[in-house]
């Protein structure tokens, strides 16, 4: 293909969008619908993952300090605990505070009334970054000098970890399936558009146009339509997401679901939508036209 044809072929591609307005409209609509479904599901799964991750972080480990240590020595252990990898947060709870908590928790039954705080140990309430590594982390905590005992809910941590793994796998599988289905639907729409123009392609072939000369306007057209579909889908996704998350935030009983603001996901979303739009547009038109080039 000669370079002086490039401008012409680009113009032809853009012109084709308007000339075949209905098919262009259909291709954009299908792209928007498919990307909206994939985008909505992805953001939902992302939020669900975050929620489970947050819930996981509420699974605390209680680290009891040797009772022979002074108050100052007991508090100083916190510095060493914070240095351990995978420790997210470490809060000191004195034996007096611990007793107050017990008294408050069991106030009705009066179990702890009259108990002396000296029966209890100072302690640290530790939360972890990743509960998959709870056993390794507790082993590291146990090796800190002055730590007398540890209370950790390993089974709960394992349960959360398994739930997270299942959720991740399920989201990947479902998103991939949705993407493949979307690609098939969009590619069929592009094929329909090509079918509509098979005579034009046949004439081009017959007068000696090279394959690249015939293809380029269609690829330009596919690129522009793909980007247009991706852009529209992105804006609609943003609007829908914001509307839905603010509605849910307003419902008291659903306050547990704290949605990640869309702004925090903007760039990954822009990249994903643009990549999907370009891929679908270019690959869709490139592969669909092959069938009609065999003249």
């Amino acid at each position, binding site marked *: *293909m000669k370079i002086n044809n490039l401008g012409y072929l680009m113009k032809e591609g853009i012109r084709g969008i308007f000339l075949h307005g209905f098919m262009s409209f259909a291709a954009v609509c299908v792209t928007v619908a498919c990307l909206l479904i994939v985008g909505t599901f992805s953001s939902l799964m992302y939020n669900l993952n975050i929620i489970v991750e947050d819930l996981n972080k509420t699974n605390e480990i209680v680290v009891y300090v040797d009772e022979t240590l002074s108050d100052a020595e007991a508090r100083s252990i916190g510095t060493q605990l914070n240095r351990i990898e995978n420790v997210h947060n470490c809060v000191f709870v004195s034996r007096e505070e611990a007793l107050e908590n017990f008294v408050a928790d069991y106030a009705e039954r009066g179990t702890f009334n009259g108990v002396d705080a000296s029966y209890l140990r100072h302690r640290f309430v530790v939360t972890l970054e990743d509960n998959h590594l709870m056993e390794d982390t507790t082993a590291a905590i146990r090796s800190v000098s002055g730590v007398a005992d540890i209370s950790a809910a390993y089974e709960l941590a394992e349960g959360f970890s398994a739930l997270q793994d299942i959720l991740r796998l399920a989201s990947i599988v479902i998103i991939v399936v949705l993407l493949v289905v979307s690609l098939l639907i969009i590619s069929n729409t592009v094929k329909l558009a090509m079918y509509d123009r098979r005579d034009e392609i046949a004439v081009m072939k017959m*007068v*000696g146009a090279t394959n690249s000369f015939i293809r380029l306007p269609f690829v330009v057209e596919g690129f522009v339509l793909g980007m247009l579909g991706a852009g529209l889908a992105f804006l609609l996704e943003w609007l829908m997401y914001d509307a839905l998350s603010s509605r849910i935030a307003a419902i008291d009983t659903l306050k547990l679901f704290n949605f990640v603001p869309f702004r925090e996901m903007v760039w990954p979303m822009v990249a994903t939508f643009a990549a999907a739009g370009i891929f679908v547009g270019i690959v869709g038109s490139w592969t669909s036209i092959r069938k009609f080039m065999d003249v």
Partner: protein
Amino acid sequence: MIEFTNVVKSYSVGTHALRGVSMQIEDGEFAFLVGPSGSGKSTIIKLITGELKPTSGMVHVNGYSLERIRKREIPYLRRTVGVVFQDFRLIESKTVYENVAFVMRAIGAGTKEIRDRVPYILELVGLETKSRRHPTELSGGEQQRLAIARALVNNPSTIIADEPTGNLDPDRSLEIMSLLQEINNLGTTMLVVTHEKDLVERFSKRVIAINEGLVVHDGMDGYYRI
């Protein structure tokens, strides 16, 4: 030059479209290819334009050997052969001017060259005043003249007209045939596929008659014989 040497073309279903066709059309010659439906005329056209490859035998068209032509060479072969169809096959979304100009674009012609050549060709076929119209706004005869302009614009050495008057009334048919004759006078090889006996006899040119995949008559007497 178009040269067929003992060409056989069989289709996968077992039909033998051509059963040993040999013929030679020299540069600048005007020939009619006649024959009933299913005789093998369309197969000959498809072999000349590279749409089909012969099962056996040799086909040479304007320096290309069709039995061993590579896929990427086919566009370049087609630039040496202009084809005019019975159903015109114009692009309806393009104007008369654009229908002709895009063929030049396809071979990489520059804008200035296109601006110079297209009006000249449109004038040659008598469509210079209709360059902004779309094909649907033209009469049948005008559409065929546009198809001829398109076939002619890249200055091919050969033009193949496949039933060019099939959709036209007798007056328009005569007009189109006269135009093809004029183009031939300028040096372009012309192969006209037709079954219109009157036209063939009126123009007194070489007639190649084909029937059941064989050349049954090849003569300069201008008679339509099958």
